[in-house]
């Protein structure tokens, strides 16, 4: 069965600094996708970044980048130049041929002014 584990329930970072959120996963598939979603208090899940497992290059979206270690089944999110608007819950998620998006338990990120 697919699993996604986020071992950091809460993280805190000073505005303008860099923070890394951890995620490990397990799947028996060779072809799958990994995602980071942001959920602010408004509840809507917002896609932050997406990584295809067959791509070796780490995905980057402006201040957000990932460190994808396929052999270790690790998928961490790095947020550079943190902004107050980055304060939210962050969920790591796995999609494979089961057609389900499996989520981790989330990391609550607080950006301090």
């Amino acid at each position, binding site marked *: 069965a697919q699993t*996604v584990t986020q071992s950091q329930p809460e993280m805190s970072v000073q505005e303008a600094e860099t923070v890394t959120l951890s995620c490990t996963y397990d799947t028996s598939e060779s072809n799958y*996708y990994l*995602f980071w*979603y942001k959920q602010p208090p*408004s*509840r*809507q*899940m*917002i*896609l932050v970044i*997406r990584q295809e497992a067959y791509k070796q290059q780490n995905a980057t979206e402006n201040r957000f980048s990932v460190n994808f270690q396929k052999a270790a089944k690790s998928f961490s999110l790095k947020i550079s130049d943190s902004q107050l608007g980055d304060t939210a819950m962050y*969920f790591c998620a796995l*999609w494979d041929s*089961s*057609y*389900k*998006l*499996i*989520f*981790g*338990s*989330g990391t609550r990120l607080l950006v301090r002014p």
Partner: protein
Amino acid sequence: GAGVSQTPSNKVTEKGKYVELRCDPISGHTALYWYRQSLGQGPEFLIYFQGTGAADDSGLPNDRFFAVRPEGSVSTLKIQRTERGDSAVYLCASSLLSGNTIYFGEGSWLTVV
């Protein structure tokens, strides 16, 4: 519409009552998902539609839960004989094709009293 639309935004119902939650996916999206998110947790998969048919309903917790998508667009999640443990945010999501980026609505917050 521009995004995934869910109604109602909030619903308070008495224990034992019947509830319907509606999801209007992004136009043209063939895949539709329902998730349930309890407080402080990540979303849990309930059911996945490809077109009109439920391709995977393995996440529905029991036979009180049922979902339909009769015309391959709007979907309704139906909960019979509601229990207090059903209280959660019910998230709907859609994607153009299975495996593509999944877009979420803002959710329906159900409270059973």
